[in-house]
């Protein structure tokens, strides 16, 4: 659906951001294909060119070289014809508008008639738990509420292309979870979704591929979906060593080899003992943990370890900010 071929974007003498020298290209020779219905994430340090890339995809910017096409036409022509759902990095609307009025106004801009716009705005207020804030001025909203309003406005019309720039910024944990549900829903509907995010765990959960941008160039494209059948590694921590671990998790290995007891389990701070275990999915994890607890083990914590994307990003950026 989206095709970028050898795209370079320079801002001339625009001020430098990040490590890029002034006048240098914000994006350099980017080639990328995003299929219809794909969820693609773009990650990279501040100033890597994520927002510029989105600007090119949505037609806000013209490439200095190369071409960008959506369904074979230039982005600006595509958005004029079909529209796109877009959440900017810093979502803003006039501060003196109320939340409800803003949604209604944007719905009218989408071409809905007055009644349909009001109906749609009410539904979104409900969905994003903004009903109690409907009559508040936008200028008086907290960061999280403003971000929820920003997300709500992306759903006013059903657009095939959805572009979300730092969508979970300012959202509380509950709304981060709800955001995941929202993306899942959009994915099921077959929308093409582009997300820029610093939250790698989120990216890994939501996207099928992560494009690693660094200093205006694609460093790596990482498939984030675990291949079918591949195990996930977890770290479990027990109050004390237990023989039941070997029964419940035959593949368990000590989390801190060399520091453990004879069984190889690693004692950690506070006298607990940690193991690495591999399971195919969360239901297997639950089943085996239940067996472990039934055998009398006292579980202190369970957490996934070694998020592959995180590791690869760390490798790619040498432990820097992504």
């Amino acid at each position: 659906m989206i095709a970028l071929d050898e795209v370079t974007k320079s801002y001339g003498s625009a001020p430098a951001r990040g490590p890029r020298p002034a006048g240098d290209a914000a994006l350099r020779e980017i080639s990328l294909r995003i299929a219809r219905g794909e969820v693609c994430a773009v990650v990279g340090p501040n100033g890597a060119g994520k927002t510029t890339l989105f600007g090119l995809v949505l037609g806000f910017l013209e490439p200095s070289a190369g071409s960008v096409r959506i369904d074979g036409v230039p982005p600006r022509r595509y958005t004029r014809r079909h529209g796109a759902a877009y959440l900017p990095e810093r979502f803003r609307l006039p501060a003196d508008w109320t939340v409800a009025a803003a949604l209604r106004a944007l719905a009218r801009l989408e071409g809905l008639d007055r009644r349909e716009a009001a109906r749609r705005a009410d539904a979104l207020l409900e969905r994003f738990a903004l009903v109690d804030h409907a009559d508040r001025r936008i200028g008086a909203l907290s960061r999280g509420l403003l971000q929820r309003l920003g997300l709500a406005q992306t759903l006013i019309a059903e657009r095939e292309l959805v572009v979300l720039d730092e969508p979970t910024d300012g959202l509380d944990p509950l709304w981060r979870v709800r955001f995941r549900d929202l993306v899942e829903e959009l994915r099921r509907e077959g929308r093409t979704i582009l997300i820029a995010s610093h939250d790698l765990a989120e990216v890994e959960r939501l996207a099928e591929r992560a494009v690693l941008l660094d200093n205006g160039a694609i460093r790596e494209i990482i498939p984030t979906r675990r291949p079918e059948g591949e195990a996930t590694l977890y770290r479990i921590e027990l109050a004390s060593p237990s023989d039941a671990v070997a029964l419940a998790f035959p593949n368990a290995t000590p989390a801190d080899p060399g520091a453990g007891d004879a069984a190889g389990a690693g004692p950690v701070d506070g006298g607990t003992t940690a193991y690495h275990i591999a399971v195919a999915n969360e239901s297997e994890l639950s089943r085996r943990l239940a067996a472990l607890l039934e055998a009398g083990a006292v579980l202190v914590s369970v957490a996934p370890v070694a998020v592959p994307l995180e590791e690869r990003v760390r490798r790619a950026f040498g432990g820097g900010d992504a």
Partner: protein
Amino acid sequence: MSALHLAGLTVRSHRRRILGLVAFVAIALAAASAARILVADEHGHVNADQLFLLGGYPAVSALLLLGWLLGRFPLIATLVLMAGLVSHDHAEGYARLYAVRPLSPVRVYGTRFVVLGGLAFAVSAVLLPAFDLLLLGTWAGPATLVLILANVLVFGALTAFLSVWTRGDAWIALLLGLAALVWQALRDAGRLAVPPGVRDVVSFILPPQAALFRLEEAFGDVAPIPWDAFVYAAGYGLVLLVIAALALRRREL
């Protein structure tokens, strides 16, 4: 989406500026009414001698200053309303929210231009004749409206044109207007020490002050309207609007 809705959004987002202009009109008309009540002669004119006796130089100066200011009111109202016509949306990021919706930017900003230009015209068309009627007991007739329209078209289009590229649109339009005023005065006085080609090019690029002067003269002298001057001024505005519309379609956001 209807043009009416776009017009409503425009009025809503400019309501403070509109209220400011309306308040200015109310104050100016209140001052003119007070002067008329206090010092009107037998013909219903405000009498400057009586005003001097009543309030001294400050009262006469204030009235003259107000009269001078009102002569520029169509320009002021146009600049106040048109300031940031396009550039404000770019700076605030709203332009990107518009751009992802299936809307033509020319339609959005064209509607905004028409609504704000119409408001500038309407407010001026109330103030100028009403002020003249209160102070002089008569008004200059349709020449007033033609002069107002020419100012709205020239300076509204100039501000809209500049607004596609810069946030300082209204200030630059004002500076260009002042530059045109000085340039035309020097030209009329034969004091321009530049080659005729340069002189003509600069006169062509700057706001058409010569045409606006002629319209002002017709207004001041209650003379027939010089339609050729109006057509020239309106054409200047129209050309700028066409260039602005073409640039809008290409402008990066």
